Protein backbone atom coordinates (compact mmCIF):
# COMPACT_ATOMS: atom_id res chain seq x y z
CA UNK A 1 0.00 0.00 0.00
CA UNK A 2 1.31 3.44 -0.81
CA UNK A 3 -0.23 5.58 1.83
CA UNK A 4 0.16 4.87 5.52
CA UNK A 5 -1.26 7.19 8.10
CA UNK A 6 -0.75 5.85 11.57
CA UNK A 7 -3.40 7.23 13.89
CA UNK A 8 -3.20 4.73 16.69
CA UNK A 9 -0.52 6.31 18.83
CA UNK A 10 -2.50 5.60 21.97
CA UNK A 11 -2.15 1.87 21.30
CA UNK A 12 1.57 2.08 20.73
CA UNK A 13 4.07 4.26 18.94
CA UNK A 14 6.98 3.62 16.63
CA UNK A 15 10.28 3.67 18.46
CA UNK A 16 12.19 6.79 17.42
CA UNK A 17 15.32 6.12 15.37
CA UNK A 18 17.34 8.16 17.89
CA UNK A 19 16.04 5.88 20.63
CA UNK A 20 17.02 2.72 18.76
CA UNK A 21 20.39 4.30 18.12
CA UNK A 22 20.85 4.92 21.82
CA UNK A 23 19.91 1.34 22.68
CA UNK A 24 22.05 -0.47 20.16
CA UNK A 25 25.42 -0.42 21.95
CA UNK A 26 23.79 -2.00 24.99
CA UNK A 27 22.93 -5.16 23.11
CA UNK A 28 26.28 -6.14 21.75
CA UNK A 29 28.95 -3.93 23.28
CA UNK A 30 27.92 -2.89 26.79
CA UNK A 31 25.99 -6.03 27.48
CA UNK A 32 27.19 -6.56 31.05
CA UNK A 33 24.87 -7.39 33.91
CA UNK A 34 24.70 -4.13 35.85
CA UNK A 35 25.05 -6.01 39.13
CA UNK A 36 28.51 -7.28 38.25
CA UNK A 37 31.80 -5.91 39.50
CA UNK A 38 33.81 -5.33 36.36
CA UNK A 39 34.11 -2.19 34.30
CA UNK A 40 31.86 -3.49 31.50
CA UNK A 41 29.00 -3.40 33.96
CA UNK A 42 29.75 0.06 35.23
CA UNK A 43 28.92 1.45 31.84
CA UNK A 44 25.52 -0.19 32.14
CA UNK A 45 25.07 0.95 35.69
CA UNK A 46 25.78 4.52 34.65
CA UNK A 47 23.42 4.31 31.72
CA UNK A 48 20.66 3.21 34.06
CA UNK A 49 21.46 6.05 36.45
CA UNK A 50 21.20 8.50 33.56
CA UNK A 51 17.81 7.26 32.45
CA UNK A 52 16.56 7.23 35.99
CA UNK A 53 17.65 10.82 36.47
CA UNK A 54 16.13 11.98 33.21
CA UNK A 55 12.83 10.43 34.18
CA UNK A 56 12.95 11.69 37.76
CA UNK A 57 13.62 15.19 36.52
CA UNK A 58 10.67 15.04 34.14
CA UNK A 59 8.35 14.48 37.10
CA UNK A 60 10.00 16.67 39.70
CA UNK A 61 10.89 13.47 41.53
CA UNK A 62 14.03 12.01 43.00
CA UNK A 63 15.98 9.41 41.05
CA UNK A 64 15.64 7.02 43.99
CA UNK A 65 11.87 7.13 43.56
CA UNK A 66 11.84 5.68 40.03
CA UNK A 67 11.58 1.89 39.70
CA UNK A 68 11.77 0.30 36.30
CA UNK A 69 9.21 -2.35 35.39
CA UNK A 70 8.31 -4.30 32.26
CA UNK A 71 5.58 -1.83 31.34
CA UNK A 72 2.49 -0.01 32.44
CA UNK A 73 0.50 -3.10 33.39
CA UNK A 74 3.15 -4.37 35.77
CA UNK A 75 3.44 -0.93 37.33
CA UNK A 76 -0.32 -0.78 37.87
CA UNK A 77 -0.45 -4.28 39.35
CA UNK A 78 2.46 -3.50 41.62
CA UNK A 79 1.05 -0.22 42.88
CA UNK A 80 -2.35 -1.66 43.69
CA UNK A 81 -1.54 -5.13 44.97
CA UNK A 82 1.52 -4.22 46.99
CA UNK A 83 -0.20 -1.22 48.54
CA UNK A 84 -3.04 -3.46 49.64
CA UNK A 85 -0.55 -5.90 51.12
CA UNK A 86 1.50 -3.29 52.87
CA UNK A 87 -1.37 -1.25 54.28
CA UNK A 88 -3.92 -3.91 55.05
CA UNK A 89 -3.51 -3.31 58.76
CA UNK A 90 -4.85 0.17 58.10
CA UNK A 91 -7.77 -0.87 55.95
CA UNK A 92 -9.07 -2.90 53.06
CA UNK A 93 -10.78 -0.33 50.88
CA UNK A 94 -9.61 1.31 47.70
CA UNK A 95 -11.26 3.80 45.41
CA UNK A 96 -10.86 3.95 41.67
CA UNK A 97 -12.91 5.04 38.67
CA UNK A 98 -15.12 3.13 36.27
CA UNK A 99 -13.03 4.12 33.28
CA UNK A 100 -9.62 2.88 34.33
CA UNK A 101 -7.55 0.69 32.04
CA UNK A 102 -8.01 -3.06 32.51
CA UNK A 103 -4.58 -3.20 34.13
CA UNK A 104 -6.19 -1.36 37.03
CA UNK A 105 -9.73 -2.74 36.80
CA UNK A 106 -8.81 -6.39 36.55
CA UNK A 107 -6.30 -5.94 39.34
CA UNK A 108 -9.10 -4.47 41.43
CA UNK A 109 -11.27 -7.49 40.66
CA UNK A 110 -8.41 -9.71 41.74
CA UNK A 111 -8.13 -7.76 44.98
CA UNK A 112 -11.86 -8.04 45.54
CA UNK A 113 -11.53 -11.81 45.34
CA UNK A 114 -8.91 -11.51 48.05
CA UNK A 115 -10.89 -9.67 50.64
CA UNK A 116 -10.42 -6.07 49.57
CA UNK A 117 -13.27 -3.72 48.83
CA UNK A 118 -13.28 -1.44 45.82
CA UNK A 119 -15.46 1.54 45.04
CA UNK A 120 -15.64 2.37 41.34
CA UNK A 121 -16.54 6.03 41.11
CA UNK A 122 -18.70 7.23 38.22
CA UNK A 123 -17.69 9.69 35.55
CA UNK A 124 -19.87 12.26 33.85
CA UNK A 125 -20.82 12.26 30.17
CA UNK A 126 -17.45 13.75 29.31
CA UNK A 127 -15.55 11.13 31.22
CA UNK A 128 -14.65 13.42 34.11
CA UNK A 129 -14.58 11.83 37.50
CA UNK A 130 -17.16 13.12 39.98
CA UNK A 131 -15.06 14.63 42.73
CA UNK A 132 -17.91 14.81 45.19
CA UNK A 133 -18.68 11.16 44.71
CA UNK A 134 -15.00 10.36 45.10
CA UNK A 135 -14.68 12.18 48.38
CA UNK A 136 -17.95 10.76 49.65
CA UNK A 137 -16.65 7.26 48.96
CA UNK A 138 -13.81 7.65 51.43
CA UNK A 139 -14.09 5.43 54.48
CA UNK A 140 -11.91 5.10 57.55
CA UNK A 141 -10.58 1.91 55.92
CA UNK A 142 -9.65 3.54 52.60
CA UNK A 143 -5.95 3.02 51.91
CA UNK A 144 -5.61 3.97 48.27
CA UNK A 145 -7.16 6.13 45.57
CA UNK A 146 -6.17 5.18 42.04
CA UNK A 147 -7.37 7.39 39.20
CA UNK A 148 -5.82 7.55 35.77
CA UNK A 149 -4.25 10.78 34.63
CA UNK A 150 -5.86 10.69 31.20
CA UNK A 151 -8.06 8.10 29.61
CA UNK A 152 -6.68 5.89 26.85
CA UNK A 153 -9.89 5.72 24.86
CA UNK A 154 -11.55 9.09 25.06
CA UNK A 155 -8.53 11.15 26.12
CA UNK A 156 -10.26 12.93 28.99
CA UNK A 157 -7.81 14.45 31.45
CA UNK A 158 -8.83 14.08 35.08
CA UNK A 159 -8.57 16.81 37.72
CA UNK A 160 -5.52 15.06 39.17
CA UNK A 161 -4.46 17.91 41.40
CA UNK A 162 -7.87 18.06 43.04
CA UNK A 163 -7.90 14.31 43.52
CA UNK A 164 -4.40 14.48 44.98
CA UNK A 165 -5.56 17.15 47.40
CA UNK A 166 -8.51 15.07 48.52
CA UNK A 167 -6.23 12.08 49.07
CA UNK A 168 -3.75 14.17 50.99
CA UNK A 169 -6.42 15.76 53.13
CA UNK A 170 -7.66 12.33 54.16
CA UNK A 171 -4.17 10.88 54.46
CA UNK A 172 -4.76 8.29 51.77
CA UNK A 173 -2.19 7.18 49.22
CA UNK A 174 -2.80 8.35 45.67
CA UNK A 175 -1.76 6.37 42.61
CA UNK A 176 -2.27 7.54 39.06
CA UNK A 177 -1.97 5.50 35.89
CA UNK A 178 -0.23 8.07 33.71
CA UNK A 179 0.53 5.66 30.88
CA UNK A 180 -1.29 7.88 28.40
CA UNK A 181 -0.47 11.24 29.93
CA UNK A 182 3.25 10.84 30.57
CA UNK A 183 5.18 12.52 27.80
CA UNK A 184 2.09 14.34 26.58
CA UNK A 185 1.26 16.51 29.57
CA UNK A 186 3.50 18.24 32.09
CA UNK A 187 3.37 16.31 35.37
CA UNK A 188 4.82 17.25 38.72
CA UNK A 189 4.36 14.68 41.43
CA UNK A 190 4.63 17.18 44.26
CA UNK A 191 2.29 19.73 42.80
CA UNK A 192 -0.31 17.03 42.12
CA UNK A 193 0.27 15.15 45.40
CA UNK A 194 0.95 11.93 43.56
CA UNK A 195 2.35 9.10 45.66
CA UNK A 196 2.68 6.54 42.89
CA UNK A 197 2.59 6.90 39.13
CA UNK A 198 2.71 4.30 36.34
CA UNK A 199 4.17 4.90 32.90
CA UNK A 200 5.13 2.83 29.87
CA UNK A 201 7.91 3.35 27.32
CA UNK A 202 6.13 2.38 24.13
CA UNK A 203 3.49 5.07 24.48
CA UNK A 204 6.01 7.86 23.97
CA UNK A 205 8.11 6.53 21.12
CA UNK A 206 10.25 4.45 23.43
CA UNK A 207 10.63 0.68 23.33
CA UNK A 208 8.00 -1.87 24.33
CA UNK A 209 8.53 -3.98 27.44
CA UNK A 210 9.77 -1.21 29.71
CA UNK A 211 7.91 1.04 32.11
CA UNK A 212 8.30 2.44 35.55
CA UNK A 213 6.52 2.97 38.80
CA UNK A 214 7.26 6.17 40.65
CA UNK A 215 7.03 5.49 44.39
CA UNK A 216 7.26 8.49 46.67
CA UNK A 217 9.82 8.20 49.45
CA UNK A 218 8.08 6.98 52.55
CA UNK A 219 5.51 4.84 50.74
CA UNK A 220 6.29 1.47 52.21
CA UNK A 221 5.23 -0.98 49.57
CA UNK A 222 7.20 -4.17 49.05
CA UNK A 223 8.23 -5.95 45.88
CA UNK A 224 5.87 -7.44 43.38
CA UNK A 225 8.57 -9.39 41.54
CA UNK A 226 10.65 -11.02 44.28
CA UNK A 227 14.23 -12.14 43.85
CA UNK A 228 17.49 -10.34 43.20
CA UNK A 229 18.51 -7.02 44.71
CA UNK A 230 17.88 -4.89 41.61
CA UNK A 231 16.04 -1.56 41.82
CA UNK A 232 16.94 -1.00 45.45
CA UNK A 233 15.70 -4.47 46.34
CA UNK A 234 12.26 -3.59 45.13
CA UNK A 235 11.99 -5.13 41.70
CA UNK A 236 13.93 -8.29 40.94
CA UNK A 237 15.21 -9.35 37.56
CA UNK A 238 18.25 -8.53 35.48
CA UNK A 239 17.78 -4.98 34.29
CA UNK A 240 16.58 -4.52 30.73
CA UNK A 241 19.48 -2.19 30.02
CA UNK A 242 18.71 -1.41 26.37
CA UNK A 243 15.07 -0.88 27.28
CA UNK A 244 15.95 1.45 30.13
CA UNK A 245 18.39 3.41 27.97
CA UNK A 246 15.82 3.69 25.18
CA UNK A 247 13.13 4.77 27.61
CA UNK A 248 15.40 7.47 29.01
CA UNK A 249 16.18 8.75 25.56
CA UNK A 250 12.52 8.76 24.58
CA UNK A 251 11.62 10.71 27.70
CA UNK A 252 14.37 13.20 27.06
CA UNK A 253 13.07 13.87 23.56
CA UNK A 254 9.41 13.85 24.63
CA UNK A 255 10.07 16.48 27.27
CA UNK A 256 12.08 18.69 24.95
CA UNK A 257 9.46 18.58 22.22
CA UNK A 258 6.33 18.57 24.32
CA UNK A 259 5.32 22.16 23.91
CA UNK A 260 5.77 22.36 20.18
CA UNK A 261 4.27 18.93 19.61
CA UNK A 262 1.21 19.73 21.69
CA UNK A 263 0.52 22.91 19.77
CA UNK A 264 0.72 21.16 16.46
CA UNK A 265 -1.33 18.16 17.55
CA UNK A 266 -4.07 20.21 19.17
CA UNK A 267 -4.51 22.20 16.00
CA UNK A 268 -4.79 19.14 13.78
CA UNK A 269 -6.87 17.24 16.32
CA UNK A 270 -9.35 20.09 16.34
CA UNK A 271 -9.44 20.20 12.57
CA UNK A 272 -10.19 16.48 12.61
CA UNK A 273 -12.87 16.80 15.26
CA UNK A 274 -14.53 19.79 13.70
CA UNK A 275 -14.69 18.37 10.21
CA UNK A 276 -15.91 14.93 11.28
CA UNK A 277 -18.59 16.20 13.62
CA UNK A 278 -19.78 18.76 11.10
CA UNK A 279 -19.65 16.68 7.95
CA UNK A 280 -20.90 13.30 9.14
CA UNK A 281 -24.44 13.16 10.50
CA UNK A 282 -25.39 11.06 13.52
CA UNK A 283 -21.91 11.43 14.93
CA UNK A 284 -20.74 12.39 18.38
CA UNK A 285 -17.41 13.23 19.87
CA UNK A 286 -16.59 11.17 22.94
CA UNK A 287 -14.62 12.67 25.80
CA UNK A 288 -14.28 16.22 27.00
CA UNK A 289 -14.04 18.85 24.29
CA UNK A 290 -11.01 20.64 25.74
CA UNK A 291 -9.78 18.67 28.76
CA UNK A 292 -8.44 15.99 26.48
CA UNK A 293 -5.09 14.64 25.40
CA UNK A 294 -3.64 16.76 22.61
CA UNK A 295 -3.53 13.82 20.24
CA UNK A 296 -6.84 12.11 20.97
CA UNK A 297 -10.06 12.12 18.98
CA UNK A 298 -12.83 9.61 19.59
CA UNK A 299 -16.10 9.44 17.67
CA UNK A 300 -19.22 7.35 17.66
CA UNK A 301 -20.98 6.87 14.36
CA UNK A 302 -24.50 5.62 14.78
CA UNK A 303 -25.72 2.54 12.90
CA UNK A 304 -22.32 1.07 12.12
CA UNK A 305 -19.90 -1.23 13.81
CA UNK A 306 -16.30 -0.45 14.68
CA UNK A 307 -14.34 -3.38 13.33
CA UNK A 308 -15.73 -3.07 9.83
CA UNK A 309 -14.87 0.59 9.90
CA UNK A 310 -11.32 -0.17 11.01
CA UNK A 311 -10.72 -2.75 8.33
CA UNK A 312 -12.00 -0.44 5.64
CA UNK A 313 -9.83 2.37 6.95
CA UNK A 314 -6.86 0.01 6.92
CA UNK A 315 -7.53 -0.70 3.26
CA UNK A 316 -7.13 3.02 2.68
CA UNK A 317 -3.85 3.05 4.60
CA UNK A 318 -5.25 4.45 7.81
CA UNK A 319 -4.55 2.79 11.17
CA UNK A 320 -7.08 3.55 13.89
CA UNK A 321 -8.80 1.71 16.67
CA UNK A 322 -12.22 1.25 18.11
CA UNK A 323 -13.83 1.04 21.47
CA UNK A 324 -15.31 -2.19 20.25
CA UNK A 325 -13.16 -4.89 21.69
CA UNK A 326 -14.44 -7.77 19.55
CA UNK A 327 -11.02 -8.63 18.36
CA UNK A 328 -9.24 -8.73 21.66
CA UNK A 329 -11.18 -11.76 22.72
CA UNK A 330 -13.90 -9.97 24.58
CA UNK A 331 -17.13 -9.08 22.85
CA UNK A 332 -18.29 -6.51 25.33
CA UNK A 333 -18.33 -2.95 24.12
CA UNK A 334 -15.88 -0.59 25.75
CA UNK A 335 -16.53 -0.10 29.45
CA UNK A 336 -15.35 3.48 29.04
CA UNK A 337 -17.94 4.35 26.42
CA UNK A 338 -20.67 2.68 28.42
CA UNK A 339 -19.56 4.60 31.51
CA UNK A 340 -20.00 7.93 29.79
CA UNK A 341 -23.54 6.85 29.00
CA UNK A 342 -23.48 5.53 25.44
CA UNK A 343 -25.96 2.77 24.64
CA UNK A 344 -24.38 -0.51 23.49
CA UNK A 345 -25.04 -0.12 19.80
CA UNK A 346 -23.58 3.36 19.68
CA UNK A 347 -20.55 2.43 21.72
CA UNK A 348 -20.12 -0.27 19.11
CA UNK A 349 -19.55 2.14 16.28
CA UNK A 350 -16.76 4.14 17.72
CA UNK A 351 -13.45 5.17 16.25
CA UNK A 352 -10.38 6.39 18.10
CA UNK A 353 -7.80 8.31 16.12
CA UNK A 354 -4.67 9.34 18.01
CA UNK A 355 -2.19 11.62 16.31
CA UNK A 356 1.55 12.01 16.39
CA UNK A 357 3.76 14.94 15.55
CA UNK A 358 4.33 13.44 12.10
CA UNK A 359 0.74 13.89 11.00
CA UNK A 360 0.07 16.73 8.55
CA UNK A 361 -2.98 18.74 7.68
CA UNK A 362 -3.08 16.94 4.37
CA UNK A 363 -3.21 13.62 6.22
CA UNK A 364 -6.09 14.80 8.33
CA UNK A 365 -8.08 15.95 5.34
CA UNK A 366 -7.43 12.66 3.57
CA UNK A 367 -8.56 10.78 6.66
CA UNK A 368 -11.75 12.77 7.06
CA UNK A 369 -12.66 12.19 3.43
CA UNK A 370 -12.11 8.45 3.74
CA UNK A 371 -14.02 8.21 7.01
CA UNK A 372 -16.94 9.97 5.41
CA UNK A 373 -17.06 7.57 2.49
CA UNK A 374 -16.69 4.50 4.62
CA UNK A 375 -19.25 5.50 7.19
CA UNK A 376 -21.68 6.14 4.36
CA UNK A 377 -20.95 2.80 2.80
CA UNK A 378 -21.35 0.88 6.04
CA UNK A 379 -24.53 2.69 6.85
CA UNK A 380 -25.93 1.70 3.50
CA UNK A 381 -25.30 -1.90 4.53
CA UNK A 382 -26.73 -1.51 7.99
CA UNK A 383 -30.17 -2.82 8.94
CA UNK A 384 -30.33 -0.10 11.59
CA UNK A 385 -30.01 2.80 9.20
CA UNK A 386 -33.11 3.92 7.40
CA UNK A 387 -32.32 7.02 5.48
Amino acid at each position, binding site marked *: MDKKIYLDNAATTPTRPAVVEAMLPYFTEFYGNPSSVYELSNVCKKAIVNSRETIAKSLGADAAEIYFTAGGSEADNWALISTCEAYKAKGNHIITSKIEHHAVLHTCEYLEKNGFEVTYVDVDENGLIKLGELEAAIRPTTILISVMFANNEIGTIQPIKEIGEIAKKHDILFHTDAVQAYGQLPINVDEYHIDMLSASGHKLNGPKGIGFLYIRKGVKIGSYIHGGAQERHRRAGTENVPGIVGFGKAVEIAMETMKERTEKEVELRDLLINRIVKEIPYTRLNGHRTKRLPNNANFSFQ*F*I*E*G*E*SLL*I*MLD*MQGICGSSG*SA*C*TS*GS*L*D*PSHVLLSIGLP*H*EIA*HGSLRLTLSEDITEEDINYVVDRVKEIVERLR*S*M*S*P*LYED
Partner: protein
Amino acid sequence: MYSEKVMDHFSNPRNVGEIENASGVGTVGNAKCGDIMRMYLDIDDNGIIQDCKFKTFGCGAAVATSSMATELVKGKTVQEALQVTNKAVMNALDGLPAVKVHCSLLAEEAIHAALWDYAEKNGIQIEGLQKPKSDIHEDEEVVEEY
Protein backbone atom coordinates in the same frame (compact mmCIF):
# COMPACT_ATOMS: atom_id res chain seq x y z
CA MET B 1 -6.31 -12.15 10.95
CA TYR B 2 -8.84 -12.93 8.20
CA SER B 3 -8.34 -15.20 5.20
CA GLU B 4 -8.17 -13.73 1.71
CA LYS B 5 -11.67 -15.00 0.97
CA VAL B 6 -13.04 -13.26 4.03
CA MET B 7 -11.34 -10.06 3.00
CA ASP B 8 -12.70 -10.41 -0.50
CA HIS B 9 -16.28 -10.87 0.67
CA PHE B 10 -15.84 -8.12 3.20
CA SER B 11 -14.51 -5.56 0.75
CA ASN B 12 -16.86 -6.56 -2.05
CA PRO B 13 -19.85 -7.99 -0.31
CA ARG B 14 -22.26 -9.74 -2.67
CA ASN B 15 -25.99 -9.15 -2.45
CA VAL B 16 -26.09 -6.22 -0.10
CA GLY B 17 -29.47 -4.61 0.06
CA GLU B 18 -33.14 -5.28 0.51
CA ILE B 19 -35.75 -7.18 -1.45
CA GLU B 20 -39.07 -5.47 -1.66
CA ASN B 21 -41.97 -7.76 -0.92
CA ALA B 22 -39.57 -10.52 -0.06
CA SER B 23 -40.94 -14.01 0.48
CA GLY B 24 -39.23 -14.08 3.83
CA VAL B 25 -37.25 -11.68 6.00
CA GLY B 26 -35.30 -12.62 9.09
CA THR B 27 -33.43 -10.44 11.55
CA VAL B 28 -31.21 -11.84 14.28
CA GLY B 29 -28.83 -10.29 16.72
CA ASN B 30 -26.08 -11.46 18.94
CA ALA B 31 -26.76 -10.15 22.39
CA LYS B 32 -23.16 -10.56 23.38
CA CYS B 33 -21.50 -8.44 20.74
CA GLY B 34 -24.58 -6.45 19.82
CA ASP B 35 -24.32 -7.19 16.12
CA ILE B 36 -27.36 -7.56 13.90
CA MET B 37 -28.01 -9.28 10.57
CA ARG B 38 -31.06 -9.18 8.32
CA MET B 39 -31.70 -11.57 5.41
CA TYR B 40 -34.19 -11.21 2.59
CA LEU B 41 -35.26 -14.21 0.54
CA ASP B 42 -37.11 -14.29 -2.75
CA ILE B 43 -38.52 -17.80 -3.12
CA ASP B 44 -40.44 -18.91 -6.20
CA ASP B 45 -43.41 -21.20 -6.36
CA ASN B 46 -41.23 -24.27 -6.68
CA GLY B 47 -39.55 -23.42 -3.42
CA ILE B 48 -36.35 -22.33 -5.12
CA ILE B 49 -34.50 -19.35 -3.71
CA GLN B 50 -34.32 -16.94 -6.63
CA ASP B 51 -32.67 -14.12 -4.79
CA CYS B 52 -31.19 -13.34 -1.43
CA LYS B 53 -29.99 -10.05 0.01
CA PHE B 54 -28.71 -8.90 3.37
CA LYS B 55 -28.01 -6.00 5.63
CA THR B 56 -25.53 -6.33 8.43
CA PHE B 57 -24.47 -4.25 11.37
CA GLY B 58 -21.42 -6.14 12.47
CA CYS B 59 -17.77 -6.93 12.30
CA GLY B 60 -15.76 -7.90 9.25
CA ALA B 61 -16.57 -11.55 9.76
CA ALA B 62 -20.25 -10.79 10.05
CA VAL B 63 -20.25 -8.94 6.72
CA ALA B 64 -18.24 -11.64 4.99
CA THR B 65 -20.37 -14.49 6.30
CA SER B 66 -23.54 -12.66 5.33
CA SER B 67 -22.20 -12.19 1.86
CA MET B 68 -21.05 -15.78 1.51
CA ALA B 69 -24.28 -17.13 2.97
CA THR B 70 -26.35 -15.27 0.40
CA GLU B 71 -24.20 -16.71 -2.35
CA LEU B 72 -24.57 -20.20 -0.98
CA VAL B 73 -28.35 -20.21 -0.69
CA LYS B 74 -29.10 -18.60 -4.01
CA GLY B 75 -30.55 -21.08 -6.46
CA LYS B 76 -31.07 -23.67 -3.76
CA THR B 77 -34.32 -25.19 -2.60
CA VAL B 78 -35.58 -24.36 0.82
CA GLN B 79 -34.50 -27.78 2.04
CA GLU B 80 -31.01 -27.36 0.61
CA ALA B 81 -30.75 -23.91 2.13
CA LEU B 82 -31.26 -25.48 5.53
CA GLN B 83 -27.97 -27.32 5.01
CA VAL B 84 -26.09 -24.04 4.74
CA THR B 85 -24.78 -24.19 8.27
CA ASN B 86 -22.31 -21.84 9.83
CA LYS B 87 -19.66 -24.53 9.29
CA ALA B 88 -20.43 -24.59 5.59
CA VAL B 89 -20.15 -20.83 5.41
CA MET B 90 -16.88 -20.86 7.34
CA ASN B 91 -15.44 -23.54 5.11
CA ALA B 92 -16.40 -21.61 2.05
CA LEU B 93 -14.51 -18.66 3.51
CA ASP B 94 -11.40 -20.70 4.32
CA GLY B 95 -12.09 -20.45 8.02
CA LEU B 96 -12.50 -17.77 10.65
CA PRO B 97 -10.51 -16.94 13.79
CA ALA B 98 -11.86 -18.72 16.88
CA VAL B 99 -13.29 -15.51 18.36
CA LYS B 100 -15.24 -14.99 15.18
CA VAL B 101 -17.05 -18.29 14.97
CA HIS B 102 -20.14 -16.81 16.54
CA CYS B 103 -20.42 -14.30 13.71
CA SER B 104 -20.99 -17.13 11.27
CA LEU B 105 -23.75 -18.47 13.53
CA LEU B 106 -25.46 -15.17 12.98
CA ALA B 107 -25.59 -15.89 9.24
CA GLU B 108 -27.01 -19.37 9.74
CA GLU B 109 -29.64 -18.08 12.10
CA ALA B 110 -30.56 -15.19 9.82
CA ILE B 111 -31.30 -17.60 6.98
CA HIS B 112 -33.35 -19.76 9.29
CA ALA B 113 -35.25 -16.74 10.50
CA ALA B 114 -36.03 -15.66 6.95
CA LEU B 115 -37.17 -19.19 6.08
CA TRP B 116 -39.33 -19.27 9.17
CA ASP B 117 -40.91 -16.01 8.14
CA TYR B 118 -41.52 -17.45 4.66
CA ALA B 119 -43.11 -20.56 6.14
CA GLU B 120 -45.34 -18.55 8.43
CA LYS B 121 -46.45 -16.22 5.66
CA ASN B 122 -47.34 -19.21 3.50
CA GLY B 123 -48.79 -21.28 6.28
CA ILE B 124 -46.45 -24.15 5.57
CA GLN B 125 -44.05 -26.14 7.70
CA ILE B 126 -40.46 -26.66 6.70
CA GLU B 127 -39.17 -29.97 7.91
CA GLY B 128 -36.22 -29.63 10.28
CA LEU B 129 -36.65 -25.89 10.79
CA GLN B 130 -37.11 -24.67 14.30
CA LYS B 131 -38.27 -21.29 15.40
CA PRO B 132 -35.08 -19.28 15.41
CA LYS B 133 -34.07 -17.34 18.46
CA SER B 134 -33.86 -13.69 17.79
CA ASP B 135 -30.78 -13.52 19.99
CA ILE B 136 -27.83 -15.76 19.71
CA HIS B 137 -26.08 -16.51 22.93
CA GLU B 138 -22.99 -18.46 22.57
CA ASP B 139 -21.81 -20.30 25.60
CA GLU B 140 -18.75 -22.03 24.26
CA GLU B 141 -15.61 -20.71 25.81
CA VAL B 142 -13.72 -18.63 23.33
CA VAL B 143 -10.10 -19.66 23.18
CA GLU B 144 -7.74 -17.81 20.93
CA GLU B 145 -5.56 -19.87 18.68
CA TYR B 146 -1.92 -19.06 18.31
